[in-house]
Structure formats: C-alpha cells, structure tokens
C-alpha cells in the first residue's frame, strides 16, 4: 500500500461527501459505511453520542 493511512468506516461516509475538502485519491484505503444488497431504513435519531473517547454511533439494523 503506497499510503498506510486509511479512513475508518463511520464518519467518512462513502468518500464522495469529502471530495471538496480532501483528495481521496491520496488515501491508502477507504472503508465505507455498510453497504447492503437491499435498502435498509436505518435507525431513528439520535444516532450520535459524543464521548470523551470518541463518537458512538447507533448500529444500523
């Protein structure tokens, strides 16, 4: 891998959302949010909880 830095799944979406801010081609890897064959509705808000150690997300069901 030319660049050992990858962005974790979760707040980097599917990459395209950050196109205006970051050149995603420079990343070594991009781990997307979950992709499923059939659409899933997802969880209601609130989905986020901020904690001193990081951000907690509701798991998609």
């Amino acid at each position, binding site marked *: 891998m030319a660049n050992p830095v990858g962005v974790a799944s*979760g*707040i*980097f*979406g*599917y990459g395209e*959302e*950050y196109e205006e*801010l970051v050149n995603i081609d420079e990343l070594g890897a991009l781990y997307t*949010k979950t992709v499923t064959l059939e*659409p899933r*509705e*997802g969880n*209601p*808000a*609130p*989905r*986020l909880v*901020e*904690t*001193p*150690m*990081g*951000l907690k*997300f509701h798991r998609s069901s």
Partner: protein
Amino acid sequence: MHLAFEWPKDLQPPLPGQFFTFLPSMVESSAGIILRRPLAFAGFEPKKNTANSSASLSAIAHSIYQIRGPCTKALALQQAGSYIDIIASLGNSFPYPDREEKVIIAGGGIGIGPMLFLAASLAENIAIPEDHIENILKPLESSRSSKEMKLIFGFRSMPLVPSFKEATGNNSIAKTWERLLSGAFIATDDGSKGFHGTVLDALEFLKKTDKLARFWHVYGCGPEAMIAKLAAFAKRNSFPAHLSAEQWMACGIGACQGCVLPARTGGYLRVCSDGPVFEANAIDWEACL
C-alpha cells in the same frame, strides 16, 4: 451572543438558511469535546470600499448564538481578532418566495438568527434601501404591496428577547437586526413582552383577526415543537412552507448520516446536507417530538 468573522475573498457568500461548523479547539481538552459545532448564519456584509480607494473593508459573516454548553461558553470568551477554524458554507438555503407571494418569517428563540438573515436578504432582493426596511414591515391591514413580509418572533420570556444595540464589529448589521426586530410581532410564552403566547398562538391570533390573507409563504426556524406546529399550521391553511431543522451533527457534510430526520415518504433525510431547510411536507415533524 454575536460572532462576526472575516470572509475569504474567493468564497461564495453564505445564503440565508446555510450554516457553518467551528472547531471548539478553545475548549479545555478535559471537557471531552471532539465534534465541530454547527451555527447558522445570521447575516453577511459584502466587502466595502472605503473613502481611501487603496483600502477596503473585508466581507464579514455574522452569527448569533446562546451560551448553552462548554463550546459556546468558550466561544463567547474569545477575544476580538482571535482565529477560529470554520468550515462553510454548509447545507441548503431558503428558496426565495415567488414574486407575488407574501411572506411570514417565524423564529423561535435563537432560531431568529437565520430568519433575520432571510428577512434582510429579501428586503435587499426586492431593492428596497436599507433605511426603508421598516416600510415593508408596516401593519398588514394597511399594506397592499406584493412584497409584504411579516416577522413573528417568539421567546420564552422578556429577558430572552435579544437586543443588538451592543453587537460587536461593524454596526450596520446590528442596526439592520434592531430595525427588523422592532418591526417584528413579538410573542413571549409568559406574556412578559408583546403577545402572550407562542409563535403559533400569535399566528392563529393573526389568522382569526383576519390579518393573514391567503397565499402566504411560511418560513420558520426554532425549537422542534414550534416547527412541527408551524408545519401543521401551513398544511391546514394550504400555505407553502419551508422550515429549518436542528439536529445533533458530527461531520456536517452528509457523510456520517448522524443528523437524520424521518422523511414523510419513508426513510430519513440528513439535516446537514439534504437540509437544514426542508419543504414542510418532506419531514414527519410529529415523529421528531
């Protein structure tokens, strides 16, 4: 509180309804804050040339906010001239009304910020000089203009009704806000100033007293309960409505899917990137409460 910051020359000006996020790096790390905080734009002053042709005043973006937690508390303690890490402009904006539409601009609490921006922009857009803004806020019964605009702002109590007389930075924006506020129909929940009741009570009152004709375009921003009732009011009266939503956010650009609201047609819409301004029927507001 009032935040004003210099706007880069090469960036498109913000539009009413849009927001920005700031990095609360000024907050003690022990507070455990990691997310950027969103704030709505409350005004924008384009670059102005001064009498001295070699100098010019930079464009300035404005926001108003309440101190609610450690981030806004720390922001309020910043000195003039401080640097702040901002991502802007984010989200969509309020669509302008059709030429013949009259406008209701409803704001609740600190939600009046984007509504002041919208009102000032509409006033400019219809080419009325700034010192004539109050003329388009004249009482409805005496107005026959197609450019009418009615501001209805609600607060819990009189001490929460803002005054912009001491707003920092360039004074012209504060004067615009003061003028808009003085022309607004003010409601307080406890009746300590203006109309006794909520924004919705005020709207219903104006409706009953026949001061609201048909074909008003409703714009609103405020607490969730107010927005839900505003959507129901607009639907009952067949008024078009665009409402700005608020939600906890992480990324602010549509990637994390954290700030969703239930869509009327099923699924969810992201406040940060599908909104924050939504056509009133797009969201199941009652389900948000």
